[in-house]
């Protein structure tokens, strides 16, 4: 996996890139990750709203929910089960992907968002001025503005940057009862994930697939990747995300053309007639 934009600035101080491998095939949907994250990172509760969407009352990732467990009830055969089953219940703990090419990081105008020496992407709460540009640049809809208590800042998973400083595991991965969330050096995780996915496919779970584990995808692979049992969209994930910066040249080019055209238009306005 590539190191991630910006990590080169650390020179020899750069650490091995770390991340999360979330194996949804063993997720029991307990939401320990959500709570452990909130306890450690002092993330406020997000209001009491019952959605009726299976057991998911967190709804989505946001400034106040840095881990979100999705619940999907399907009338579909469950290849993990013996015999004939026509129903399955998928659960997946979603989180910031810590993209190799991170849209939020690219567009942040204040430098509040930065790439850490561990290859992760973190918002500095003491710098962020809440401009909201990162919201539009995230292909996964991870970041939002925290409106509670007049906070006004943008928040998301830090992959427990503070804990990493002491070699501690991020709170969610530590709490996860079934090791559905695994933390570690990304290379090792990817290798482990490939093996696990291969085992599942071999065992007849043809739906098993890795998501964001390929450095040639539109975000250069992610620091947090997943083993899924269905299409990404089913979990609310984009099927082929790309970082918007990928088209930066086109965009600046179009702006230059437009600026030139504007200049030409004004010139034409003066040249049209002497008056």
């Amino acid at each position, binding site marked *: 996996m590539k190191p991630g*934009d*910006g*990590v*080169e*600035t*650390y*020179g020899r101080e750069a650490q091995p890139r770390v991340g999360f491998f979330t194996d949804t095939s063993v997720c029991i949907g*307990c*939401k*320990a990750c*959500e*709570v*452990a994250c*909130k*306890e*450690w990172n002092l993330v406020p509760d997000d209001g009491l709203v019952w959605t009726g969407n299976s057991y998911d009352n967190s709804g989505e990732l946001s400034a106040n929910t840095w881990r979100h467990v999705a619940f999907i009830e399907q009338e579909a055969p469950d290849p993990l089960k013996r015999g004939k089953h026509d129903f399955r219940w998928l659960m997946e703990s979603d989180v910031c992907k810590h993209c190799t090419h991170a849209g939020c*990081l*690219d567009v942040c105008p204040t*430098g*509040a968002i*930065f*790439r850490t*020496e561990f290859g992760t992407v*973190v918002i*500095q709460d*003491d*710098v962020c001025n809440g401009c909201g540009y990162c919201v539009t640049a995230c292909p996964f809809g991870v970041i939002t503005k925290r409106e509670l208590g007049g906070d006004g800042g943008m928040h998301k998973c830090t992959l*427990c*940057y*503070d*804990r990493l*400083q*002491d070699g*501690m595991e991020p*709170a969610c991965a*530590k*709490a*996860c*009862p079934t090791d559905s969330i695994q933390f570690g050096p990304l290379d090792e995780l990817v290798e482990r994930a490939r093996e696990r996915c291969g085992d599942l496919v071999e065992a007849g779970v043809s739906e098993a697939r890795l998501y964001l584990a390929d450095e040639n995808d539109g975000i250069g692979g992610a620091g947090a990747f997943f083993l899924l049992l269905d299409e990404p969209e089913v979990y609310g994930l984009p099927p082929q995300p790309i970082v918007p910066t990928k088209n930066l040249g086109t965009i600046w080019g179009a702006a230059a053309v437009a600026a030139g055209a504007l200049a030409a238009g004004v010139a034409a306005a003066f040249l049209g007639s002497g008056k």
Partner: protein
Amino acid sequence: MRPGELIGRWPLLRQVREGDAFGLGRAVQSTRTQELRPRTDAAQHVVQSICPYCAVGCGQLVYVRDGKVDQIEGDPDSPISRGRLCPKGAASKNLVTSPSREYKVKYRPPNGTEWEELELGQAMEMIADRVIETRKATWQKQGDSGAPTERTMGIAMLGGATLDNEENYLIKKLAMGLGVVQVENQARI
């Protein structure tokens, strides 16, 4: 901070100086970020505990700072839980510091419509008096069959499965001394 230093810390200049032309990494770190450590580093002491919810008995580490619980997380040394916790266990700090917790004795007199304040010491006196009075008034030397029972059927107790073993033992022992047989807990339920 002197103006010179301030300018020296200006990330725009550091972008050039520290080879972070795109401003994506090291150059944009704030001082606070550079000095960031896990807050458990500042804990005065760490105590090994056990989760208070279900009976799996997961190990917990309680970090204390300034005399307050600062963090509770799993104890990796526990062969039961290996450092893991469920959402309830993970919410233990939220439990012990919950805004819903009560810290004062509340008293409702018979037929009262509101809670009243009461000193803890006085509450203990009153409860002791109630026990003594009720016990006296309902003392039963014999059961229906005439067999000696030496007990009170006027007092009952319920609860204990959320308590410590030692507390349960002491409740039972006190109840035996008082002749209270109706001692029950959640195991019945």
